[in-house]
């Protein structure tokens, strides 16, 4: 041991002897500093873009603040928009714990909504609690099967999960449209094909004292539970090991296959539940409005949160707030509605580029020594 140490360069030994920050503290600090820096740089780059097209970046930032966060009214609007995003972001972050990039949450979302509408119509007349519980279960089951199949394809056949999940999203949307315009169509829905409206007692209401439906609370709780499972249970620990090195985990006797199936199914169940909430709290029936890109926005949020379930909550609020302010920005500044998409794209690229700083940011700032572990 002493022989090995003597062969190390002196600077490394010094760094080992006198670390400015411990390994854990350094990682935690970086996990907050790097995404924050990426967000600031991304927002700055977007400001340059806005200035280049001849608009005022200050006005843009101010309107996003006003429309998304500045008042109690806009904050409640933001929370309502954030509700499905919390769950669709989990649909990306859960498989990511195992190193899988699943981007087809949109498919589980629309199928969850479809399953909820079908179940609700079928159970009409039942007590509200029964109806809502059955709708939630049906949506989660169908969403779970859908993304679980992506996990199974990956594990048993080696099919790339990124591509298969996106293909399955297109198939799911086609299935949803088929049922909404065919077998499950309400004959009374003329201009916009929809399933029959849900019975009133199956609708999800608002959190008392707020203008925000219960879906927001459900989403926050789901993120907290996922965070707890990942950091405080052996199940989550096993998943983190398998995500770090699947082969080593298999050698240790960890059931990698079952972990993949469980995590992808849970991911699909989360996205499916988001679809249930959208139908039961917002739309009132399944129709083409379900295809609003919540699944795709969830990908961005999960990456912004660096796949940490707890960090999803603030990131989803941030993106939900930007989307909530979109209408105001569009009207006041005469910008196209795709402006929000451009901002999201820039933030996404910025956060991915910032990954390259991990392990290098603090040494560059002089907070730890170069080469420190």
């Amino acid at each position, binding site marked *: 041991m002493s022989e090995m140490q003597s062969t190390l360069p002196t600077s490394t030994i010094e760094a080992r002897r006198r670390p400015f920050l411990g390994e854990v503290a350094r990682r935690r600090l970086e996990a907050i500093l790097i995404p924050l820096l990426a967000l600031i740089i991304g927002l700055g780059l977007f400001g340059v873009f806005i200035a280049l097209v001849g608009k005022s970046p200050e006005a843009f930032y101010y309107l996003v603040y006003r429309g998304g966060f500045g008042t109690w009214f806009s904050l409640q609007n933001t929370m309502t928009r954030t509700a499905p995003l919390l769950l669709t972001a989990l649909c990306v972050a859960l498989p990511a714990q195992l190193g899988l990039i699943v981007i087809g949450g949109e498919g589980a979302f629309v199928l969850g909504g479809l399953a909820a509408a079908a179940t609700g119509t079928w159970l009409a007349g039942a007590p509200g609690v029964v109806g809502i519980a059955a709708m939630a279960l049906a949506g989660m089951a169908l969403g779970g099967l859908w993304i679980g199949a992506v996990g199974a*394809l990956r594990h048993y056949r*080696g099919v*790339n999960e990124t*591509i298969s999940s996106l293909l399955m999203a*297109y*198939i799911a949307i086609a*299935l949803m449209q088929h049922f909404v315009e065919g077998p499950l169509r309400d004959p009374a829905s003329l201009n916009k094909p929809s399933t029959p409206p849900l019975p009133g007692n199956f609708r999800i209401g608002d959190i008392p004292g707020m203008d925000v439906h219960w879906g927001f609370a459900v989403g926050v709780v789901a993120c907290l539970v996922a965070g707890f499972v990942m950091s405080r249970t052996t199940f989550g620990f096993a998943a983190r090991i398998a995500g770090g090195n699947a082969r080593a985990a298999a050698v240790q006797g960890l059931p990698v296959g079952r972990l993949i199936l469980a995590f992808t199914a849970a991911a699909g169940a989360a996205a499916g539940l988001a679809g249930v909430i959208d139908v039961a709290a917002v739309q009132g029936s399944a129709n083409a409005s379900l295809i609003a890109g919540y699944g795709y926005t969830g990908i961005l949020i999960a990456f912004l949160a660096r796949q940490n379930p707890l960090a999803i909550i603030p990131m989803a609020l941030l993106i939900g707030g930007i989307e909530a302010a979109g209408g105001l920005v569009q009207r006041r500044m005469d910008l196209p509605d795709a402006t929000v998409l451009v901002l999201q794209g820039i933030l996404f690229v910025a956060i991915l580029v910032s990954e390259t700083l991990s392990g290098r940011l603090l040494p560059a700032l002089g907070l730890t020594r170069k080469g420190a572990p």
Partner: protein
Amino acid sequence: MTTDLGIWAVPLAVLGGALRVSTPFLFVSLGECVTEKSGRINLGLEGTLVFGAMAGYGGSLLTGSPWLGVLIAGLAGVLFGLMHGAVCSLPRVNDIAVGIAMMLLGTGVAFFFGKPLIQPAAPMLPAISFGGWSDVPQLRAALEVSPLFLIGILVAVLLAFMFKRTRLGLIIRMVGDSADAARAMGYPILPVRIGATAFGGFMAGVAGAYLSLYYPGSWNEHISSGQGLIAVALVIFARWNPIACFGAALLFGGAGALGPALQSVGVTSGYYLFYAAPYILTLVILFFTSSRNRALDGAPRELSITK
């Protein structure tokens, strides 16, 4: 004036559709084939395709020449490719994730600048007619072929030749199969990969221009329905072989044309399910061509997706 062909109208419409619908698949998959051969995967081609559709349409509208529009779309694609290639050259940056981000960015920027282009009509690309010998109007319609389709076939042959017989092809393959070997031989890895990604971007941009300037021949926000992404999966199916990419593109074009073809003869029920045919086909093909235990035959060994 149409001749009553009965049930034969469907295969004929599928053939014609295959020739029209396959071209974007062909261009994107050929470009992505080169990118993947160099060891990178670019899922952002879907965004590049949409941006190319917008840039091509706008270019044709402003210059009055659809071919200049195609060139502008290709050059815009190069910029997206360069951006993907450069960003992925940084350590610890995941090429699949960057592709997803570029998909969002490309689509967003295309919609942002494309808003005023939805109304005006741009000059379209011409067609070459191969059906002059026939009296059947449906057959003549089916054999109207875009010059870009023919150019695509030529590019497929040239790429196959390049990979097999030229120094450049060998360098790209080596960089994609073993970065260590390429480094040992003194070949520059990152420039080759960035160049290969830029080429992929060019091809995807041209594919987008085909969508907006030939078939379906208009610019709107629903111009692409995942062709850029299917094409990436198609390269895997084609085992990174440019000639096989051509066959796969025809197959997918045919699958994509099935829904509209059936609709044209009056089959309207289950339209959405036929619309899903290319996606289901891709998934089935991936299922049968993937394997749990070994890397895919012919896969570039540096490719993250098959590692």
